[in-house]
């Protein structure tokens, strides 16, 4: 009897964990757009004030995780890898254009370009947050239901 309970619990926990990991890409997207949006804001403020070179600016924004690695790639002036962020092809192209424009122009043209990205990034960030919230909840529930179904069928 106890063995059945433990096995049922393990199956449900496993399925819920699968649901959690299935929603990971939505969380990665949410985090990416939140960090990109913050980077954009910080860069715009940098352009209006200290105008430090891009390497110094990126160095000061060091952190952990995939986005920090992406910033390190930019510091080395290499093409960034965006595969960990689960972006659509269109988003990836937009982001590549975004990163390629960093530092390429005087402050007026840089301000104009990156200001034009502010609202777009805010929209993307909001949409990614919403999607992450709804998908995370959905996948957890699906995991729970799948776990229960397995328990009924197997145990």
């Amino acid at each position: 009897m106890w063995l059945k309970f433990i096995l049922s619990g393990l199956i449900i926990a496993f399925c819920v964990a699968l649901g959690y990991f299935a929603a990971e890409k939505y969380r990665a997207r949410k985090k990416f757009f939140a960090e990109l949006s913050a980077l954009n804001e910080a860069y715009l403020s940098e352009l209006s004030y200290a105008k430090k070179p891009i390497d110094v600016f990126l160095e000061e924004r060091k952190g952990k995780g995939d986005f920090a690695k992406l910033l390190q790639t930019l510091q080395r002036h290499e093409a960034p890898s965006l595969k960990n962020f689960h972006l659509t092809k269109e988003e990836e192209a937009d982001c590549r254009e975004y990163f390629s424009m960093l530092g390429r122009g005087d402050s007026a043209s840089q301000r104009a370009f990156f200001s034009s990205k502010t609202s777009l990034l805010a929209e993307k960030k909001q949409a990614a947050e919403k999607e992450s919230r709804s998908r995370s909840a959905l996948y957890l529930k699906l995991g729970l239901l799948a776990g229960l179904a397995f328990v009924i069928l197997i145990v």
Partner: protein
Amino acid sequence: MLDFLPARLYGALRNVNLNLLYEMRIRADKPLSVNVGGKFSFLGERGMCEKAAALCPTSAEVEQTLLAACGFSLYSVENQIRQGFVTASSGERIGLAGTVVYEGGAVHTIRDVTSLCVRIPHEIKGCAEEIYRNCLADGACSLIVLSPPGEGKTTILRDLCRLLSLRTNLNILVCDERGELAAGDLGGTADVIRFSEKENAFTAGIRAMRPDVIVTDELLPKDYAAVRRATESGIAVIASAHLKRSEDVPEKLFDCYVSLDGLGRIGTISRRAPICG
């Protein structure tokens, strides 16, 4: 030093004595030339060579050199670009030639840059010893070093500043408009204002930093008013100018006039009465 150069051009410098390298001329689709020890020659893949064997930098390499020298941040050096130069991280001054773009009657930027003149700063400790002994040994006084471009004025000013700081402990304000002067040891009592026009640097520096001596590079006629204000306030000014003879200095505000005679060679040292010290 010179780490902003594309790999192909940097590689060509492997067989060049960098201690004697004063200048590089990078022109799009034209032979690469260098000034080594005061003499220009062409540079090929294996070092100095004849014109026919010289490397010809491409337009893309010229653009890449400029971008890298700016730290890939054009916005952070736009004021320098408007004045026709950028200063790289180790104090290398890069002169630009290209198409000047005007906006509102003022230079907005330089686009399609086709030629770069890279000047490499050198630190030669003791090169200003003779000038120091002749003019400053009895105390700081105003002094100007004169020579055509590329004869070592900045190197001499840097060493004078270091000697003055080391031996007198006076408070020295270095107004480094182009970021070249401070590419080396200026001594422990030197404060540096970088990339500011002399007018602003002198005014703000005198008020805020209370210097005993101001050291600055490449005086233009418009800068003499600021020098006069400083000397009238009792501050000694040590400067340089692109002039050959002391008679050509627009305002006789200095106690000593030093003319260089060729690369780093001190020619004449003349004094205005009363003799300084």
